[in-house]
């Protein structure tokens, strides 16, 4: 995965609190192979009345076409561990989600797919939501942890580990393989320290 440190793109606001992973992608779509693209499942039921797209839904408005930054409200991505929620956002073209709080597993999954979960204060979150009443260009800088919309500036937080990972585009399996010897040594000691870890009887 390619790393990145700056992003400039169209921002769209979704002011509803608690957009959980079941909203981001309803369970019934999760058996699809990723190769078919998950973008069409993004917020599938929330943006429709029955099967008809709701023209008022922020992401359905023509002005939001091509958006890559989503400003959301409290507790975004809470709920299930389904990485498909992140696939739906990424495949729909999003690179950044800004919110005052995130589901923990969602945030980790996001980083593993190059999507930045930018944590802002409640006050900044509200200012950004207001600033994006109409979709507008947003600049995001991972090095300085800053967001800019017109003359509004906000700082965001992200765990240093996750920030580095996004910037460098690190892949965990590659990183871990560099520790293969340590892992093997740890495993060898387990037989003494916690022998019950290896079940002996195949029940």
């Amino acid at each position, binding site marked *: 995965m390619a790393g990145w440190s700056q992003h400039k793109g169209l921002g769209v606001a979704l002011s509803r609190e608690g957009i959980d992973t079941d909203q981001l992608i309803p369970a019934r779509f999760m*058996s699809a192979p990723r190769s078919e693209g998950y973008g069409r499942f993004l917020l599938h039921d929330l943006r429709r009345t029955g099967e008809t797209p709701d023209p008022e839904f922020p992401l359905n408005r023509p002005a939001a076409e091509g958006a890559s930054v989503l400003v959301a409200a409290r*507790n975004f991505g809470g709920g299930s561990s389904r990485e498909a929620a992140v696939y739906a956002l990424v495949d729909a073209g999003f690179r950044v989600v800004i919110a005052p709080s995130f589901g*923990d597993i969602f945030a980790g999954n996001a980083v593993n797919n190059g999507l930045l979960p930018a944590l802002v204060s409640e006050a900044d979150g509200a200012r950004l939501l207001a600033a994006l009443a109409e979709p507008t260009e947003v600049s995001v800088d991972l090095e300085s942890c800053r967001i800019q919309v017109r003359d509004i500036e906000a700082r965001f937080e992200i*765990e240093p580990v996750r920030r580095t990972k996004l910037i460098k585009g690190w892949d965990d*399996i590659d990183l*871990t393989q560099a520790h293969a010897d340590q892992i093997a040594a740890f495993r060898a000691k387990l037989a003494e320290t916690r022998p019950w870890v290896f079940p*002996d009887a195949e*029940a």
Partner: protein
Amino acid sequence: MSGPKTLLDRLWAAHAIHTRADGAALLWVDRHLVHEGSHHAFRKLGERGLGVAEPALTTAVVDHYAPTRARMDGGASDDIRRMIATLEKNAERHGIRCFGLRDARQGIVHVIGPEQGLTLPGCVIVCGDSHTSTHGAFGAFAFGIGATEVAHVLATQTVWQVKPKAMRIRFEGALGPGVGAKDMALGWIAQLGADGARGHAIEYAGPTVAALSMEGRMTLCNLSIEGGARLGMIAPDTVTFDYLKGRPFAPQDTGWERAVESWRALRSDEGASFDREVTIDASGIAPVVTWGTSPEDALPITSTVPDPAALTESKAAAVRDALDYMGLAPGRPLDGTPVDRVFIGSCTNARIEDLRAAAAVMAGRRAKVPGLVSPGSMMVKAQAEQEGLDRVFTEAGLQWVGAGCSMCVGMNGDLVAPGERCASTTNRNFRGRQGPGARTHLMSPAMVAAAAVTGTLTDVRPLLKGRI
């Protein structure tokens, strides 16, 4: 690190293989559980030409898509059959034990782990499922991971983590009759919010927790994620050891004695410091139901539906939205709200004790609405049938079916119809969770049984008079 330690400190130290300067640690994984949803991870593994590092520490089970009726037909649709077959194929290819539909040990991943003795104190346990926190009830460090991490664990038997902050929730005082772990959990989540414990590992403690059975402890830990926590756990004690002794994958004979001896050290020291502490008086907890579309939207059954007019504008909008979806009028009593169906099942509340609690309310009564009872595992199903609980449910008019996630998430086709109101023992009342347009009210198994026999949300306590 010297000085008093928390349970979290102990579990962390025992599994950290390597800690980077930026704080990320590579943790050894003792138990990895996979289900049909792992198809993305196996594909990633395949793309890189990698194998499974520790098949013996990995267990696969069919649960999310498991048909609960006509099981041997293999599923309601081609899609479902394909998801199940893919898991079984992946398990076979990599030499992973797999509890498929024909296996007597099949059930929901978080039910079968403990039941088989795969879940043990002192383990790091991961699964591509958020309710992995359930296993923390045994004093394990257990958490849900996404598909990229599942692939990583399959390939390396390790996972990168930043140590969560330590939080302790103490419950003090005795629970009233008809009140249990589900009410404790929904109670603290309503108090702190669905993101209230974000970034924390919760240790549940105090006399009320110590008095809970393993089933109750699992329910409590299961719901940790609904309060935003990374995981929940409880220090193992005699209740834990009694539950595990003799389970198929638990250590046997002298191995057992040695294991128990080491497990006794898995607790927080007197004076250990937590980043956050909350104390809750359990004696004041009444049976809880949810009214909205987040588990934090929970209230005692004795209260009224919140009124947006009485709230600040920022809160009011969310409440109005939720009530609109749920089809509830503000200000009316929760008790007496008619329901269309009930569901007893899921990794939160479908263990034997949950079924007994529901049956205690239902025995000799008829359900006024249709409903489904799906035991957490085929072992739980067999046990319940031995105790005659199945007959209590079927004589009441409910359907008694096979084990799986079923109507908790609807992936197998067990759905709540649009607009229908369902009293459910599950863990998520999210919009559309039980099917598009479905209206879910979360509550305990006893409360669901009360809803079944009255056809409304109602306080179970009067129905229990003379029964417990």
